[in-house]
């Protein structure tokens, strides 16, 4: 086993240091080392998007990135989406629009959708579907997820 490495990074706005083996993924580091279990594991092959986090504001499958690669980066996970007790408009609309059933895909969808709305606060349905195509949901048929993103976009535009 290779020696553990020290990783200095920023997670959800806070400077964080952790030790990980070189072979541990960012997802594993977040979940098993740092206890941030909000990012989910669905496949470990980059196909389901349940592990999506933002790395320097871009959506990334954290199962495909090594923990050591987080060095010097800015990581945002679902745990960092709300501001204190104020939910992000996406979280609020996912609740109001009943966009989750089992909820295992939800953290990944929220992060992909946040990245979309940060770039494009007024997306069309097609743009939303394109931006979320890397996230699988097996429960909802995506209908209520797409609607929630459209509704959240309206809230964000009205601000």
């Amino acid at each position, binding site marked *: 086993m290779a020696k553990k490495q020290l990783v200095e990074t920023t997670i959800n706005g806070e400077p964080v240091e952790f030790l990980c083996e070189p072979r541990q993924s960012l997802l594993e580091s977040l979940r098993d080392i740092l206890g941030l*279990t909000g990012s989910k*594991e669905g496949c470990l092959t980059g196909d389901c998007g349940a592990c999506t986090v933002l790395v320097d504001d871009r959506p990334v499958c954290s199962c495909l990135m090594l923990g050591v690669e987080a060095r010097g980066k800015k990581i945002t996970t679902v745990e960092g989406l709300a501001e204190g007790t104020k*939910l992000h408009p996406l979280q609020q609309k996912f609740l109001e629009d009943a966009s989750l059933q089992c909820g295992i895909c939800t953290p990944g969808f929220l992060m992909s959708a946040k990245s979309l709305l940060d770039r494009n606060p007024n997306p069309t349905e097609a743009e939303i579907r394109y931006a979320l195509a890397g996230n699988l949901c097996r429960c909802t048929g995506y209908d209520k997820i797409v609607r929630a993103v459209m509704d959240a976009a309206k809230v964000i535009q009205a601000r």
Partner: protein
Amino acid sequence: MAEEATQEFRVIGTRPVRHDGVDKVTGRAKYGADYAFPDMLHGKILRSPHAHAIIKSINVDRALRLPGVKAVLTGEDLPELPDKAEPIGEVPTNLRHTALNILARGKVLYDGHPVAAVAATSPHIAEEALSLIEVEYEVLAPVMNVHEAMAPDAPILHPERRTKESPDKPTNVASHIQFKGGNLEEGFKQADYIVERQFETQMVHQGYIEPHNALAVYNPDGHATVYTSTQSPFEARQLTALVAGMPEGELKVVPAEIGGGFGGKLVIYMEPLALLLSKKTGHPVKFVMSRSEVLRATGPTSGSSIKVKIGASKDGKLTAAQVWLAYEAGAFPGSPVGAGCMTAISCYEVPNFLIDGYDVLVNKPKTAAYRAPGATNAAFAVETVLDELAEKCGVDPIDFRINNGVKAGSPRPFGPPYKRIGFIETCRALKNSDHYKSKLHGRNRGRGVAFGVWFHAGGQSSAVVNVHNDGTASVVTGSVDIGGSRASMAMIAAEVLGLQASDVRPMVADTDSIGYTAMTGGSRTTHSTGAAVYEAARDAVRQLKDRAARLWQIKPEDVDFVDGKLISKNNGVPPMTIKELAAKFGRTGGPVSGRAGVSARGGVGTFAGCCVDVEVDPETGKVQILRATVAQEAGKAIHPSYVEGQMQGGTAQGLGWALNEEYVYDTRGNLRNTGFLDYRMPTCLDLPLIETVVVEVPSPDNPLGIRGVGEVSIVPPPAAVANAIYRATGVRMQELPMSPPRLLKAMKNK
């Protein structure tokens, strides 16, 4: 009861935010894989690389010598269990098969069949240890579909098994079921049109995003706790205890939040292994499957071969139907062919019929329930044949179904006639939908419809409704919440107690904290556990009336309970709210806690219809879904958003089954598509918004008129898509999935 079913509701039918929602949008909710203990070990499973082989020897010595490896299990470490069906919960389950599926002994029966389990200090070390286990196999020829398996000289999966039909010779046909009625020959004679077709479908997986997981903590006092994402904590407890050879009462199952199941998480796979490894090592042991393990070795639903022959008279009346269904069971008996037989023609009145179903063993994973198990395969076949017949009769396909559709009093192929049902209403709702009324223009486009029927299971459920001192309440059940059922339970309690949904906190308890409650599955939770919550809330109301009577020094019968207020019938005291009364519980006899245990009646007759518009690319054979609408009966929709959610989710799964999803095996019996990249489920880009029409025909079997809504929506889409493809291309597809290569080939051969 009947009057109650038509009553006006205050909370039921509204759309409050689900109580567990914030935890799930902030990442706080704890799913099975999120549990961890400081001194925990990680388990991994060595799986068979062969579809069919004899295990000649297993040597684990090298694995045990790897630093960090703490224990290894093989099949010999599990107790030998009887080869007969024992009731687990309420479902007869063969314990020997269950154990052999968890860890093989003597023989492996499918690619991915577990052979050994390792516990080590990290998942990576456990993984490494697997490669150090030496297994010697004698490879046998695999049987990979029902035709091979039913051939006279087929290799046999279970040479020791005998059946009623084959008492002397081993066979891969695990069982045969038959329903018949009327006079088949006469029926076909009366027909002006007869359509006869054969259909083939492939295994498909439930595809829940959360892989299976299990974490066991065995204590030195012999008591143990298992944390797992399961649809059925009580059945998991009973089975895990039996397979691990410990008393059931010593085991507590804590149902974690569950990331989808669709029937696939009614089965235990790793729970007994985690438990035995924890017992062996003294550490908590956790297993989490990889996606390829999920696909290779957990329950898909059956691939099948189905022959359908149906006759109709010129005026569009069905005269006779013959259906032959052979379903892949996988490596152990238990395909859903029975339900296939029970649903195949059960939307229609068919005076003369013969239905034969065969449960067939093949060298593939043991199938598990998948949303309306068995019904989708059968409906794909029957509903495309009906489409052909409707066309021959020159009748609109929905009218054709209305003309032959079942209603209250219609006979069924099995069991007593239908009670109050809403098939005709569902047909009409689809016919009147904006979608069906719209015109579809353009080349290579077509529209198809299809229908389906499913049951809602009854069975045992417990519920406790606590009224707290501040006048709010909590409702405790044993039904795992897989799609928003906590909200429905809180709403039912709130309705009865005259509270707001937000005043009632719902909770899913572990197996020590609530009475027996059967699975979340079979569309039973809202119906059966909902009935328990309803009764428990009424029990709480009775107690509230007693308390008010005591305070007012009148008889309990003289207290009314209206809109959350206690009202004296015979003197002028002002009404009292629950909140006011709750503050006085201490003086009137202590806390108020209503409880109920029910053994609910199940029902047949939740119907759905689906209408889809497709566009077929003539160059590639790719089918794009342009528009989809689902109409479904819900009895009474408690939380309409989650009813719609079930309808949309089932429709999406049905569309995936229709177009892309299939298990692809090579000739050696190895699964070739073991990841989400090539086990291709629908993404956001593949689907349109899914329009829903909720049809409310109250069920006579539930105090609130509820029907289970979880499953039936998956049934119609494959047939609806096939019918739409026919309108777009002139090609009748008789195979699933209707993937680009298959459709292209069919179009070429037209």
